């Protein structure tokens, strides 16, 4: 089975919560999608469950965005394959807190 090492960059609050410093490296089995990355991330760091996507619906929280390769992938299907550069680990998958506008 295809196993890729994916690089994930978390926002500062979630890095603190998960007690990680820089980016996270995850091994993802099978197709590299938003869902497979987040499944692997939450399996390694259970305290992140519910902070990026809803516990029950598994939908992305409204003010969380997913960026990669200079593109906003937030509205892509969670099961759509991510760019090859993410799947190969050449580019990171970025979890970003949306701009607040001054809060």
């Amino acid at each position, binding site marked *: 089975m295809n196993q890729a090492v994916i690089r994930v960059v978390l926002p500062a609050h979630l890095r603190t919560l998960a007690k990680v410093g820089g980016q996270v490296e995850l091994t993802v089995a099978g197709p590299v999608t938003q869902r497979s990355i987040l499944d692997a991330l939450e399996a390694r760091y259970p305290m992140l469950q519910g*902070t*990026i996507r809803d*516990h029950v619906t598994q939908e992305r929280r409204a*003010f969380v965005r997913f960026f990669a390769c200079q593109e906003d992938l937030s509205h892509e299907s969670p099961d759509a394959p991510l760019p090859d550069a993410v799947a190969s680990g050449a580019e990171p998958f970025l979890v970003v807190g949306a701009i607040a506008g001054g809060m």
Partner: protein
Amino acid sequence: MKTMSKVRVLVGTRKGAFILESDGKRQKWDVSGPHFAGWELYHVKGSPVDPNRLYASQSSGWFGQLIQRSSDGGKTWEPVDNKFVYDGVPGTHKWYDGTPHPWEFKRVWHLEPSLTDPDTVYAGVEDAALFRTMDGGKSWQELSGMRGHGTGSGWQPGAGGLGLHTIILDPKDPKRMFIAISAAGAFRSEDGGATWKAINRGLRSEYIPDPDAEVGHCVHHMAMHPSRPGVLFMQKHWDVLRSDSAGDLWKEVNGNLPEDAGKRGFGFVIDVHAHEPETIYVVPIKSDSQHFPHEGKLRVYRSRTGGNDWEPLTKGLPQRDCYVNVLRDAMAVDSLDSCGVYFGTTGGQVYASADAGDSWMPIVRDLPAVLSVEVQTLA
């Protein structure tokens, strides 16, 4: 001897939690924090049976709800379960436009640890519901009889949200508890939270279509002295009230509180002296549209008669140009021989009185807006 005791003040703010500690004199304070910097801490509270066991409600508009637990008095914390899922098919309540709206979990407003078991905690959440953990926060289950109360589908949020913000446990009857919900009212359970009865008779709210309705009243907070669990005090949207019948009937005790456009008694906090069950405290706020102290003077009002006769307490509090608010969970009392009273403001001050309100001093002046204040009296 209680004067040799210590106090620990747990402060939740818009941008983190702070822990303020002092000896029994309550003059010099150590401040630690911010814990969970940058997050909203709606409430932090300790277990009455294990004071080193603390629970904190941590939330964020971006990343949702977390619950943190400490077993060493707040020195270290660990995240526990944050999964608050309504029991069964959630159904609907009424939305702002009057249409049915699905129940949606938003945040935990209040954590109430059990009086007997440090692993049991009740959580009041928005949209209004009551949850409980019995394993120290490893899992939460809804006590859905609360939300399933016959009137639930008609509850409609106020501007501040449909939050279950007050949970009072009866120390003499482990099966009896009281809760309050913004824009719904007060409720009582006699069976450990399985079934509930609305207890709003005597409340009169001119801002709702039927001023004497069974539910729909905007109860801001309630308080009880542990020695007299049948006596409840309430701060409503307008009006301070008391009940001598465990909520079956309420009467207004606004008395000589500051007058405001023909009414009296608007505010958010209410609390009871640790040793005098008829001594109560409120902080009157000007009207429901301005939400700051009357005349720019920050005054705590104390009644030694359980209401009606009130005296302003001003010594040490700003008496000009003060336009802060004191939110519903932001007042608490300690149980030292000379009862300490504490409250926090939206301006980031936490004031303490070591003499039951006669005089005040700020412990800290420049925290983020204070959402909640709790006090632990430590041996």
